[in-house]
């Protein structure tokens, strides 16, 4: 194990830890605007992890789409609703303890499953590297139909969002 891979390894673990901390911040911070910023952090960290898995295109898309577009949208929404949250208003509802307990169970169970499952890791897969060109060919090839469907969904969502958000007279 050389130095570089070690650094990368720890870098990944660090990114993961960072992402988890930011994620916890997202769900716990009282100020919604702050949690949105933390979300941005999570998303960027995720993008880094993608990059680490040689999913360069996805990492770029993650940054562009999520951090660029979705985050802007969310922040706009937060601004428009003018409910950033305050000390006086509870930001969590009364079922947080129950939720926490349930989640603990959930994590424990799935954790056990994850560790017990013999994941079939193949060397060939590890060695492969997907280029943007291959992705594009796949989209235009076997996945052309879902691709088109997604485009329709996006248009529908666009129109739908406009219609819903429009002020009715």
């Amino acid at each position, binding site marked *: 194990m050389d130095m570089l891979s070690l650094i990368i390894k720890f870098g990944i673990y660090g990114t993961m830890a960072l992402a988890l901390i930011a994620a916890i911040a997202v769900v716990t911070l009282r100020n919604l605007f702050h949690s949105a910023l933390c979300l941005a952090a999570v998303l960027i960290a995720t993008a880094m992890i993608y990059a680490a898995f040689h999913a360069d295109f*996805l990492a770029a898309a993650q940054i562009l789409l999520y951090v660029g577009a979705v985050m802007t949208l969310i922040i706009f929404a937060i601004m428009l*609703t003018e409910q950033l949250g305050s000390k006086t208003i509870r930001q969590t509802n009364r079922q947080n303890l129950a939720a926490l307990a349930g989640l603990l169970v959930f994590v424990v169970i799935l954790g056990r499953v*994850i560790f017990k499952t013999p994941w079939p890791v193949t060397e060939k897969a590890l060695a492969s590297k997907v280029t943007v060109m291959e992705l594009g060919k796949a989209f235009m090839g076997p996945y052309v139909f879902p691709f088109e469907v997604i485009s329709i969904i996006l248009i529908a969502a666009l129109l739908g969002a406009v219609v*819903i958000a429009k002020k009715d007279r």
Partner: protein
Amino acid sequence: MIIPLAHILIFSLLLFATGLYGVLVRRNIIGILISIELMLNAANINLIAFSKSTSLSPETGQIFAIFVLAIAATTAAVGLAIVLALYRVRKTVYTDEVHLLKW
């Protein structure tokens, strides 16, 4: 593979759990939407991880992830539009103040 697959999965599990916690307990609807984005990200990470480590077609996982990304964008757009419409009508974004379907 630099780190074991299980570690990645545990990470995404924790990320998912955190997002779910947010969904279950946050009162603010925008907060819920943000948490949903967390959960979607967790799922995406899983997809990438599996596509990197199993012998299926390598690009499939990424393609699925991109679809999820697109869906996430639409969810955000439509969801936030609903929030805005709701806010305009009810002047609130807190879930427990919107309970028309209560008995």
